[in-house]
């Protein structure tokens, strides 16, 4: 054995016995458990459960940290997120960002979507053209209607703590407005 390999071996043996080896959790395996709710490869057929594949890593990571820290309190994700450390969240974010986004097949109402289109301009400023995602705001396009509508309601109920920008955007909207916006973005496949 070369001197360098021997040195490496000594260093490894010198680590405390109960310290987890860095990167020991298999991320691909961890990601596979998510499919149970979010569908195969994170592109689920849900009406209330979102697709998590093909989102920018930054937004995936922000959402998971939100669930872990309490700025998002959804009753399932808050527990899953507590079980993950920063390294795992970062790696999962990259893993899912690389997978293709699969738009929801849940039906949308064209009349509602038409009304939502008129309101969408200011949302697009952060969420990108047609809500396909941009640096400041995650993808909305093609997420299920019920999920989007529920998320907007969560900002207003406090179940999600929104940024100053989000809350300013949401304040003037009625429940009907939020529903129309949800139908609009859900229909942008």
């Amino acid at each position, binding site marked *: 054995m070369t001197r360098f390999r021997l040195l490496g071996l000594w260093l490894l043996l010198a680590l405390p016995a109960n310290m987890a080896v860095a990167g020991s959790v*298999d991320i691909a395996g961890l990601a596979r458990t998510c499919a149970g709710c979010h569908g195969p490869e994170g592109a*689920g057929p*849900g009406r209330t459960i979102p697709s998590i594949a093909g989102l920018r890593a930054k937004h995936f990571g922000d959402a998971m940290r939100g669930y872990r820290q309490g700025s998002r309190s959804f009753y399932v994700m808050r*527990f*899953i997120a507590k*079980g*993950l450390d920063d390294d795992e969240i970062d790696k999962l974010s990259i893993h899912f960002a690389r997978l293709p986004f699969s738009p929801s097949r849940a039906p949308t109402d064209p009349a509602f979507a038409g009304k939502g289109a008129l309101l969408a301009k200011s949302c697009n400023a952060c969420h990108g053209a047609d809500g396909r995602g941009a640096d400041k705001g995650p993808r909305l396009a093609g997420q299920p209607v019920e999920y989007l509508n*529920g998320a907007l309601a969560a900002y207003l109920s406090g179940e999600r703590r929104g940024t100053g920008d989000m809350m300013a955007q949401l304040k003037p909207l009625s429940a009907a407005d939020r529903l129309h916006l949800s139908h609009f973005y859900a229909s942008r496949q």
Partner: protein
Amino acid sequence: MLSRRKLLQAAGAGVGASYIPLVSAEELLPKSGRRIVVLGGGWGGATAAQYAKRLAPDIDIVLIEAEEAFRSCPTSNWVIGGLWNMADITTSYEGLRRRGIKVVRDRATAIDAAAKEVRLTTGKVRYDRLILSPGIDYIYDNIEGMDAAGRARFPAAWKAGPETALLRQRLAAMPAGGTVVMTVPLGPFRCPPGPYERASLIAAYLKRQKPGSKLVVLDANKKIISKGKLFKAAWDDLYRDIIDYRTEQELIGVDGSDGTIRTAFDEFVADVGNVIPPQRAKAIVHEAGLIADGRRWAAVKAKTFQSAAADDIHIIGDATDQSSIGSVPKSGFIANSMGKVAAAAAVALLQDQAPPTPSLANTCYSLVSEDEGISVTALYKWDQETRKFLVPAGAKGLSPGRSKIVARNARDWAHAIWADMLS
């Protein structure tokens, strides 16, 4: 003319699976190249087959399943409660076939671990690695009167299929003002919240359609063993005059001719009776020598689900012994998680690689009324010290109460996970 093979098959089918014919059975699907055989096309097995094929398209994956379609036990309570029908919980195996998995419709009769073969009723299949996900057998031995008549009168419906539909029909046919009696065995059993979801939905149905009816729940346990606080709150709010829930009630005997159900101190007459008996791993696992004497479930190495008794056999799902794995429930979601871990481990071992460090997840949804649900969630990570799965601090909890959004999520979850397993 009756062939010798047919005679032997007829003999073997009736006798216990420990009989291995002197004449070598016909080899089905002659083997060339590496092969993983999965026994059982349920929540664990279908997942294991799906993921083994995804991870290693070149490895031959054979799935052996006795039924012609997948019928889901999780959500079958929704059929019993009259919310869904049998078609809603049934999925074809066509998705797996389209992926190139060989789905063999047959019943396994024995495992020959030395020869690395699984015996079916029509022949044998050889394997390099075997993943067993056979599910449960009912233990009726200690319940007096549970002969064929008893079982027909008091179906368990703890495996989705004809008994599910039968229980549904019986409830529908029961006159208003009738009494339903349900018995719950001592844990551990398949699906800890299952009996309490069933009680909730039967009560909801009686409230809706059979006014004046009662549901007596005789639970051998000291208390509701999963999501107890949430079930109790729902029952107090919604079913106070309907559910009569009693604990520490061990079922002693039944009478199939008149509907009598007996505990040590009481007797009840059921218009509709549902006896959920104690359970153990399916006989084929015991008969293969994979379970220690007197134990109900199979011990495995948690990291790979390899049998403690045989390196090239993995065992997953309800048949596993939680004392060897860690405190994970016998749920469908867990079986699905285990299927993924076993598939990754089996593939890695066949490719002479180290199996990965695994994780499991579980979200157990229960409907407590036709449009409200409750849930419990946990994440499990494999721990190097104990070599079992542990829940990291804070990574387990209940939904805050019962709500419509949880019920809607539950329906979504069912469709998502069936797509995960079977598409």
